[in-house]
């Protein structure tokens, strides 16, 4: 029996934005990320689960109960807001205890839970500070402690790390994971950062324009993107897409290739002849961005540094075994890469838990990575 289940949830504003016909199920204790570009409806979806928005169609079940019509307080969940939503006039302790006081939970129980939550989040000694006297990371921890102290089985997190700097983001990320494990929480985590989604979660829901593009384990999303949108969203840099004719294939397919599999060759020895557009030195390797009329987002990695020059022509080989083939019309995956050892041993945690929503995406349509 799944712990959290959404059935055909739709919420739109004047026929646009929001989410359309979203369904998925989540087992107890799972860590699920909702990933997608800005404006794809991922925060709306979270607010629908929280009960801060009402769906126009569909049902939400938590622990087998239909909670669609119930207010947020009766859904037995906690939530961490992007802005933290700390009460500025209350001390850290009062912020954390707000919900317990509202629910009139006994004083000794309050103290016990507060101590535990402060210890888990490393906030001891800051009990009497006001939020304004805390750093961003500490405020984030207070928000986490407030969610932890409620001891609800389901915790919703709305981009909790987006206001932190990169270094802090990594350490709080680990804390979130540890906290979720220690408390046995089922977590729904909204993020636009694929690194967070991939590293934290058991299941990733990739959304685009209000619909689910793909549901699966992080490995699934990385290795078997269901659509060209998924292919161009996941990975840093994401998968390159090459029109079929460019690789002597039919024109009704698009080939996808991970930059890790692309190799540079001398002129005449590869599959495509491309121009070097950009060279990025990354330390242990160098990323080469390439342009070719038939390719989109083509890139390759070279170990160490390189003496290649900008605008130089090089050949690239795109190994047939590493190619994914997408339907040029529908954008859906048609053929998986072959002989990819990792694919065979991939964790099969999330297969078949939800429909893979169809989505039409042409190569010419750039994925909406950022809102203008």
């Amino acid at each position, binding site marked *: 029996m799944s712990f959290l289940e959404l059935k055909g949830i739709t919420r739109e504003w004047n026929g646009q934005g929001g989410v359309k016909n979203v369904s998925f199920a989540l087992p107890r204790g799972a860590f699920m990320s909702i990933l997608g570009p800005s404006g794809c409806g991922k925060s709306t979806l979270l607010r629908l689960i929280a009960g801060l928005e009402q769906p126009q169609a569909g049902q939400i079940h938590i622990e087998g109960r239909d909670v669609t019509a119930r207010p947020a307080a009766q859904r037995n969940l906690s*939530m961490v807001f992007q802005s933290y939503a700390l009460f*500025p006039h209350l001390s850290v302790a009062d912020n954390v205890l*707000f919900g317990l006081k*509202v*629910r009139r939970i006994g004083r000794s129980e309050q103290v016990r839970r507060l101590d535990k939550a402060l210890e888990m989040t490393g906030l001891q000694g800051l009990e009497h500070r*006001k939020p304004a006297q805390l750093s961003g990371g500490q405020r984030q921890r207070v928000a986490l402690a407030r969610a932890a102290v409620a001891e609800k089985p389901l915790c919703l997190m709305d981009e909790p790390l987006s206001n932190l700097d990169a270094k802090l983001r990594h350490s709080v990320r680990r804390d979130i994971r540890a906290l979720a494990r220690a408390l046995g929480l089922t977590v729904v985590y909204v993020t636009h950062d694929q690194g967070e989604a991939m590293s934290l979660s058991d299941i990733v829901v990739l959304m685009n324009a209000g619909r689910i593009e793909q549901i699966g384990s992080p490995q699934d999303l990385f290795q078997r993107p269901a659509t060209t949108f998924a292919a161009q969203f996941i990975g840093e840099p994401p998968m390159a897409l090459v029109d079929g004719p460019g690789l002597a294939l039919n024109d009704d397919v698009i080939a996808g290739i991970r930059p890790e599999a692309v190799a540079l060759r001398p002129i005449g020895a590869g599959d495509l002849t491309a121009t070097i557009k950009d060279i990025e030195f990354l330390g242990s390797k160098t990323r080469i961005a390439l342009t070719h009329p038939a390719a989109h987002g083509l890139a390759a990695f070279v170990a160490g540094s390189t003496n290649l020059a900008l605008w130089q022509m090089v050949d690239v080989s795109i190994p047939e075994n590493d190619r994914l083939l997408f339907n040029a019309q529908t954008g859906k995956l048609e053929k998986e890469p072959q002989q990819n050892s990792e694919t065979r041993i991939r964790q099969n945690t999330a297969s078949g838990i939800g429909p893979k929503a169809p989505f039409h995406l042409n190569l010419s349509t750039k994925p909406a990575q950022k809102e203008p």
Partner: protein
Amino acid sequence: MTDPFTLERRRRAIHGWLLLSPALVMLSVFAFYPSFATFVTSLWSRGTRRRPSEFVGFENYQYLFEDPTFWLVAWNNLLYAAVTIPISITLALAMALWANAKIPARSFVRTAYFTPAILPMIAAANLWLFFYTPSFGILNQIGGLLGADPVNWLGQPSTALWAVCAVTIWKEAGFFMIFYLAALQTIPPDLKEAAEIEGASRWTYLRRVVLPLLMPTTLFILINAMINSVKLIDHLFILTKGGPSDSSKLILYYIWENAFAYFDRPTAAAMTALMLAVLGALAAFQFLMLDKRTHYR
């Protein structure tokens, strides 16, 4: 003299005084000097052509304390403040909460509430004079429809002060509402959502989150309302002229009467000095005591 350090210090000092001078000059001319002059005047006797004024110390204050009208006026003013301040603040808050909610015709509601505040005092008082007019005033006409006897609201000692209070509340509540409305809009909506998820009812959210966050505004309004309550004079000119038999007379009106109707400037000055002292003490109390318990963002 030529030491560069000394020169720099002097330059900074001159700079500082120059920056300070506009405010200092204005305040001195229009606030400090008049207050001081008032106090000095209050220590001298009333001069006539035959008897020039002479220094009498605190004699004027002594006469004032023996004057039953002064005590009546002070009591009236206290009642007036005790009624109008809490009611207008509560009303303002209630109206702001309502006008801040998602209601139809929200800007119309806001404008309607604010209209009394933009009417000139005299116009507002005249308007209410029509309402209060005996027999054919609106209040009595409505009362008449319901079978009540006509009441001369402004003409009898038992109702005159309350009638004046009602006008003030009507006028001030809309004005204070704007401050509350502005403060309410600075409260991020996700605080409400966070409280909602924690299971807080609307009332709990109001009491434990909204009201504390509105405290700085409340303090500001409180001080303003207090100052306004001793500043009220124009309503009285139109509505009651302090009557009947001083029942609606407030302190500023009494000061005006003493100074410009009875030409007893020293008594008026003594009352003014007392009023300033009381107001100063109140403001100091509010800022020192309530400030500590107020959360400023």
